Each structure stands twice: as structure tokens, then as C-alpha cells.
């Protein structure tokens, strides 16, 4: 069956918009949640400024439970919660919710890894100058780790484009959905090619933005 390109292009533009919305919304909510969890993980670590073994262990295990679950399964498993929070399990926002949860745990780990890389002496110096734990978090930890953090978030953004394609298959809309319905189910290679090209462009743009910002912050 031939594709009607006059109806197809508006459809493509609409789904690109949905994908971008899913990715950006997830990135914003996921970063807020993920950076918070990552910071909490770092500061409660043994020997760190707010050491709390039980909290560290709980978060650590929680992340290790959530992270290995394949996203498509996580999406389905979380659907009762999604329904309770968003009110539906179909549509863009119903996809954003599980994406956010999955992304935050990934981001949390990236944040923790980057914070561990900070020279402990720098934190000690801030402490010696009379910085409170709160001040240490916002004036030392985050600025010192910002460059690698931006690269980490760029990496996550690109996985989110991938996530969004999967979310499409459960009614989240977006380019993934278009590619599946036209390309996979109707065997139309040209549609699939167009969506893939758009996805590649999105990835390139995301990586370019991430590289530019991180270079600016890290001065290299």
C-alpha cells in the first residue's frame, strides 16, 4: 500500500513534537529527581558530609533493583501506578511518567559517579572555611562536577530518545509509534527511513548541545 504523503508529513511533525516533549519533560523531571537521589547517595556515603549508612544502602539497593529491568517491561509493570498518578496509561504523559522514574535512577547513578570523582580535599577545604552541608552541596559539589554531569545528562537524553520509541508502542505516541505502525506493521521502508533519519538528527542535536555546554563549563 502506498503512503499518502500529504497526510503523512503533518503526522511526522506531530509525532516529532511528541517525542521531543517526552524527552524534554522526562529530562527535566528525571534530572530533578535523579540529581536529588544522586546527591543523597553521595552525601550519605561512608565518610561523607551527611553519612547515613541505612539511607545509602536503601537507595543503593533500590537503584540496583530498578536499573536492570528492561524498560519495556518496567513500562508495563508500572502501569497501575501510572494510572493512579496520570489518570491513564495511554498517551504522551502516560509515557513520560514511567520514563521519568526509570531515567531518575539512571541519572542518580551518573550523578553519584561524577561526585565520587571530585577531589575530597576540595570538600574538606570548604568545610574548613565554615561551609554548611547545604552550602557544600550547592557551591562545591554541583559546580565542581558540572562538566561531566552535563555529558552524563546528554548520554541519558539519547537513551531517552530510545525509551520514547518504546513508549510509543504502548500508546505514548511519538516517532517510535509512527515507525512501528507504518514501518514494522505495514512493511513500508520509506516511512521507517524518514523516522530513523529524524531520530538521528535529534540525537546529533542533543549531543552537540551537551558537548557545547560541557566544554564551556570544563574549559576543554
Amino acid at each position, binding site marked *: 500500500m502506498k503512503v499518502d504523503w500529504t497526510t503523512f508529513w503533518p503526522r511526522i511533525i506531530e509525532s516529532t513534537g511528541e517525542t521531543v516533549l517526552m524527552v524534554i519533560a522526562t529530562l527535566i523531571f528525571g534530572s530533578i529527581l535523579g540529581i536529588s537521589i544522586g546527591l543523597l547517595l553521595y552525601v550519605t556515603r561512608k565518610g561523607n558530609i551527611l553519612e547515613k549508612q541505612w539511607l545509602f544502602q536503601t537507595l543503593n539497593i533500590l537503584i540496583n533493583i530498578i536499573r536492570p529491568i528492561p524498560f519495556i517491561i518496567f513500562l508495563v509493570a508500572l502501569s497501575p501506578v501510572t494510572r493512579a498518578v496520570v489518570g491513564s496509561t495511554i498517551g504522551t504523559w502516560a509515557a513520560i511518567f514511567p520514563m521519568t522514574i526509570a531515567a531518575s535512577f539512571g541519572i542518580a547513578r551518573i550523578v553519584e559517579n561524577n561526585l565520587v570523582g571530585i*577531589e575530597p*580535599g*576540595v570538600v*574538606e*577545604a*570548604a*568545610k*574548613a*572555611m*565554615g*561551609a*554548611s552541608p547545604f*552550602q557544600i552541596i550547592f*557551591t*562545591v559539589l554541583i*559546580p*565542581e562536577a*558540572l562538566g561531566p554531569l552535563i555529558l552524563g545528562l546528554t548520554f541519558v537524553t539519547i537513551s531517552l530518545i530510545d525509551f520514547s520509541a518504546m513508549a510509543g508502542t504502548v500508546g505514548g505516541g511519538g516517532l517510535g509509534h509512527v515507525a512501528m505502525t507504518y514501518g514494522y506493521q505495514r512493511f513500508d521502508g520509506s516511512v521507517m527511513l524518514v523516522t530513523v533519519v529524524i531520530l538521528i538528527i535529534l540525537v546529533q542535536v542533543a549531543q552537540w548541545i551537551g558537548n557545547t555546554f560541557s566544554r564551556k*563549563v570544563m*574549559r576543554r
Partner: protein
Amino acid sequence: MIEFKQAAKTFQIGKREVTAVNNVSLSVAQGEIFGIIGFSGAGKSTLLRLVNMLERPTAGAIQVQGVDLASLSQKELRKLRRRIGMIFQNFNLFTSRTVAGNVAYPLKLGGVPKKEINARVTELLSFVGLSDKANDYPEQLSGGQKQRVGIARALATSPDILICDEATSALDPDTTADILRLLKKVNKELGITILLITHEMHVIQEICDRVAVMEDGEVIETGSVFDTFTNPQHSTTRRFIQSVQQDLPSDALLKEWRAKGGRKLYRVIFKGEVASDPVLSRLTQQFGVNFNIVYGSIRELQEKFFGNLLVSFDGDRHAVDLLLTALRETVEIEEVAVHES
């Protein structure tokens, strides 16, 4: 100014207990430069961190300006830390901030108005000689310049005390001398009490007024730098002193001297004023004894003369004995032992 009272710190490493600081009592007076020297692992770094409670003592007490640190709340402690500047071996500058940003940081923490911060940063950078580097980032600086930034940052809040954690150990000899001069300037011009730790005896010799020697978590010797250098009590102290000045020739050379039939050697030590009295010449003439200076030096130490000479005497045995007794009234004399090894 700073008072350690039977301070101790024990770390729990796995199931093992490690005592880093053991029963240390020390008192650092206002306006002095006090040095703590010890080999690595002696506990000096931990001791230093007790002063601003980066480490809490497990026993004993620490007082700063008469205040028992254990009695302070977290908030009061943070306030106190602003009066104690600290510099580090690895500088610990913020890589995300410029030179000016690093120096401004402690002022920002204290909520100082922006205009005042800028004026203070300019003043501090000129004090440490880095006015032209304000907008550079730490990675663009040499080690010595980094430490200058560290010092400017530590001085930002106009502290009463500066504590230095191996501040020159990562620097080359020339740069070390620069930084030591700067620390001396901080002490003299700003009247800031300095407590430093080091494993380099020349740092102590160069700028300290008093010194404590640490070993295995304990202070084994303490006194003025002049007394400690001229009359060390402990073998570890002697080892440190020998690292900067060789007071005796090597055992091999002494044995060779003895083997060739050389006379008994006496170590003559004279300190301070005594140096202006030609005692050796006067007394040897009086007793009719010839003397021969075999080895030694006369140096300046803490702005005083310090002489250390190895001398042999040639003359009647009785006369030599009388001479030694007479000499002992003004200078220190000991016979040099040759170790058979």
C-alpha cells in the same frame, strides 16, 4: 591561642583500632609560628585537623582562644572555622572557580556584600602577588601560584590562626622558599598565629619559633627551634636535624681518622653571644695547648650564631684536661665517639 589537653584520636579501621594521636598536650601562643614535625604516619595531619574539628578527638580537649571546641554547636563551629584559615599540600582549589572566585568563596559563605568582596579580593591578591592572575583558572597556574591562591583564600576572612597541612611538600625548593617567605610575612605583618605540620626540617629551621616532634601519635619533644636544634633530646629529633645539617662526619670518615692515628676529637658547641668571645684561642694559649679544627660550621639559626666544631688538642695530657674544664664553663664540649660497625 591553641591548647591541646591530653588530646587523642583513635580511628576504627575495620575491626582494628588505630591510634593516630595519643595523649598530646601542647600550647601554641598568640603570634608565634609553631611547627610540628614528624615522619609520615606520625599523626601530625590528624593532630592539625583537631584544631578546626575536621577530626573530633576521642579523648582530651582542644581549646582555641579559650573556647573548648567540644562545647560548640555545629553553627558555632562553622563560625569558628571562619577565624581559622587552612592551607593544604595539594592546594585544594575549586577548579570550577577563577583565582578571584576561589579567594571570594569564603567571603560569599559569610554573606559579605559583593562590593566588599571585590575590594577584599583585590587587596588579598596584591598581598600574595597575584593581581594579574585574578581571572585565570587554577589549572593555568604553577604549584607555587596555586599555593599563593590557597593562602589568599585562607586569609580572606581575616582569621586569627592559619593552619598549614604540609603546605610546601608538593613544591620545589625555590618555590618552597617563596611560600615560606610569604608565610613569614603573614605572621609578621598581619599578626596571624601559624600552626604548621611538615616532614621537612628546613621548613622548621626557616620560619618556626617553636617546634614539636611527633612520633607514633605522641609528641616526643617540644621547645624553641634554637634549643631543639642545638640540644636535641630524642634520637628522632637528631635524625631530623641531621637531614638539614650534618653536625658530625660520617662514621667511615671518623674511623679512618682514628685508624690513621688521629687524636681524640671533641665536639665544641657554642651558641649565641659566646661566638663573639675568642675562647678557644684564648684558653689554648693560656694552657699551652695547640688546637686543630678538623670539621664543623658556624651558622645562623633563628637569628643567632650557632657553632659546631670538631677539634683535636695537641699538648700535655694534664694541660688538656685543665683546658677542657676551663672551656666547659663557656661552651659545651663532648668527646666524639667512634661507632664500631
